[in-house]
């Protein structure tokens, strides 16, 4: 079953919701910066647990940076691993008195540029220039993964904010695509109650997502 939501209405650009969302994003970025900087300081002192958490927390930041340089697919994974290795070798060059994210992003961007240069140096043989030029690139455009992740995070937040019964109905019926019979047997709720809860949940989600910061449905 697919969860379909109505298209969002247009909102004035400088709405309060948008401003509070921008503040929220700025606050989240600040919190991430502080968290990563603290973990890096601990890693410089030899704390392996903090270092492991730091490297894992860095993965989405590095992936976003290398994608922004135009890398796709396997090349993104390569550049992410190159960046992690450089981070490890260069960890003494991080100054604890300075922000961590610009330091990390500079390394990620450089490793992405190195990957692009390597790819550019690799000889390409084109037997049929017309077919080569006319070939459609079916890979996702840059930034699409990030937008999809943001949309998924937004939806997850909206689902989490639903009342327990409605949330259960959405998760089981819409997201896990289980049948009414299965969910009814598993939860002990009647099919009618599940249908009503799903209907209300979709209505509530439609309202909350349509009224989101950028009106995206």
């Amino acid at each position: 079953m697919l969860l379909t939501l109505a298209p969002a209405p247009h909102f004035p650009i400088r709405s309060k919701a948008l401003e509070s969302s921008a503040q929220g994003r700025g606050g989240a970025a600040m919190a991430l910066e502080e968290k990563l900087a603290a973990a890096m300081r601990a890693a410089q002192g030899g704390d392996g647990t903090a270092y492991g958490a730091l490297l894992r927390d860095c993965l989405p930041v590095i992936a976003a940076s290398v994608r922004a340089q135009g890398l796709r697919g396997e090349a993104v994974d390569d550049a992410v691993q190159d960046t992690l290795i450089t981070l490890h070798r260069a960890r003494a060059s991080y100054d604890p008195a300075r922000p961590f994210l610009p330091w990390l992003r500079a390394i990620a961007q450089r490793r992405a540029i190195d990957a692009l240069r390597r790819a550019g140096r690799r000889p390409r043989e084109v037997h049929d220039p017309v077919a080569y030029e006319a070939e459609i690139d079916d890979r996702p455009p840059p930034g699409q993964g990030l937008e999809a992740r943001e949309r998924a995070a937004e939806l997850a937040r909206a689902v989490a904010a639903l009342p327990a019964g409605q949330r259960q109905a959405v998760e089981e019926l819409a997201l896990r695509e289980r049948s009414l019979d299965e969910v009814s047997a598993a939860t002990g709720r009647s099919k009618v109650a599940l249908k009503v809860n799903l209907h209300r949940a979709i209505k509530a989600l439609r309202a909350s997502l349509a009224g989101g910061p950028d009106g995206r449905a």
Partner: protein
Amino acid sequence: MAARHTRPVDDLVGDLVQDLRPIRPLLPAGARALTWLAAAALIGLALACIAETADLRQRLATPDLRMAALGALLTAGTAAYAAFVTSVPGRPAAWALLPLPAATLWIGASGLGCLRAALDPAAEAHAQTGLGCFGFLTAVSLPLSVLLVVMLRRACPLRPNLTAALGGLAAAAAAATLLVPFHPEEATATDIAIHGATVLAVIALNGLAGGRLLARG
């Protein structure tokens, strides 16, 4: 683009955590530049033992020679500082412009000295010193360049050629400063041309060879 890293990123994170050792963050760029300048001063002290310091005071009494020596010294200091700053990820490449004012003073004052010497017929007597200057500048620049590259490798220069070229400028300027006690008062146009060519050669050599060494670091 073929994948270069074939194992999962989680394995790499595990390996990097295993390899973690406590590490002391690098000293600030200013402190590292001062350390390098102190090494250059030690070479200067060693050379002072064989220099004819009796004439030095008289030479430094000439304004353009004094300004050229001051310009070279300031160029050495600012270029070394800029090299250390640009060796840290996330710091702007615009730091490479820092030595420009001092280099302008150095080149301008040297040019004035050349003009003064051109108007002085006695200057021709010293025209044969050019090759000696070339030997001196390269012999002093070489160990200073090597030391600087070794110190820069401890950081993570993401623009290795730029950082190494700045290091070359610092080494050449330091060598030119140390040349003052050995050089005759009247610098001819040939002298200046040889000095300029030697400095450019040291910068180019550092930018290429040093850049490769730093890129491997």
